[in-house]
């Protein structure tokens, strides 16, 4: 699954797949724009058969989820785990520590989503 997703990203971002790892940040490192993310999601749907919900796949509503959690006194990690069940607890804590550095989406998050939502 990792190789397939890296191949999709490399194809759409027009770059060498060997330059992409699970730790690569899509926006921070690759400069992916919203249209690139849309196309990556569409390719995951059509090439890999993964049902895609863009907001969840690309953690697009992450800051909204955190704001709502704050307003309802819900622990941030609990709110994120509920919204993004494909992410591990360790990854959620890493995201929370990484927020100040910019968009947190990594290739590993796409792989986790695809693995979690892969049709049985």
């Amino acid at each position, binding site marked *: 699954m990792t190789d397939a997703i890296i191949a999709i990203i490399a194809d759409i971002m027009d770059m060498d797949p060997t330059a992409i790892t699970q730790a690569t940040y899509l926006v921070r490192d690759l400069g992916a724009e919203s*249209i690139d993310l*849309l*196309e990556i999601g*569409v*390719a995951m*749907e*059509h*090439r890999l058969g993964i049902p895609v919900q863009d907001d969840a796949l690309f953690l697009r509503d992450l800051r909204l989820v955190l704001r709502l959690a704050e307003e309802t006194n819900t622990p941030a990690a609990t709110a994120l785990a509920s919204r993004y069940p494909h992410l591990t607890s360790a990854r959620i804590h890493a995201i929370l520590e990484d927020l100040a550095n910019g968009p947190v989406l990594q290739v590993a998050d796409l792989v986790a989503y695809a693995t979690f939502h892969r049709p049985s």
Partner: protein
Amino acid sequence: MSLTFQGKNVLLLGGSCTLGTTLIPMLTAQGLVVRATTTTPSHQSHLEEFLPPERIVVLRLGNASSLAAFLEHLPPADYLVDLAHPRGEDLLLAQDPTVAEGLFLAMGVHRLRLLQALGRAMLARRFGRMLYVSSTAAATPAPGQGLYCALKRAAEGMYQALGIELAGRGVSTVSLRLGITDAGRGAPFLEKRPQLPGVNPQDAAACILYLLSDQGLSFCSTTITMDAGLLARKYPL
């Protein structure tokens, strides 16, 4: 001029109208595979004069379950010709809110869902062409066409925005505002007002064919008018 088409499959949304059935043989003559939706079984049997039954689907855009069933088995489409339009006219202040709600749902929200599904499939193939057949009423509504005008402009806006967002990835859009067409509801209207310029459905269909072709792809994210000069006059005829 000979036209070329890099795609193969055409979907006519609301294809049983005169414009749709005029367009079908033109598309077929270009080697394109045409599928069409229609709203009722009676329109379906009319369409069967032009298309084999397996290429006709009943789709009621205002009905959520009909739309869901259609999206479940989305036909292949490199080209979309959107002929779906709202029916019924009333003064805005007299408009039944329930009817208005249903029309906005069908022509706004459900149309968007359809465009999302078709657009994503086109994006996956990096080619697609979407053409929306609008109306001069979007620019200059007559009294009683307020809702019709608003819905047409909303659809034009969606098509324009889709083209802006996707043209760089091979999916382009265009809207065609037709004047009074000498077919359907337009025919008796023109018959009573012979001084008004009408648009022949054959000419409109030929224009659509061109706009779908590779040669017409540079008409992108824009709205063009084909009204035989109806709106060009300072004073109405």
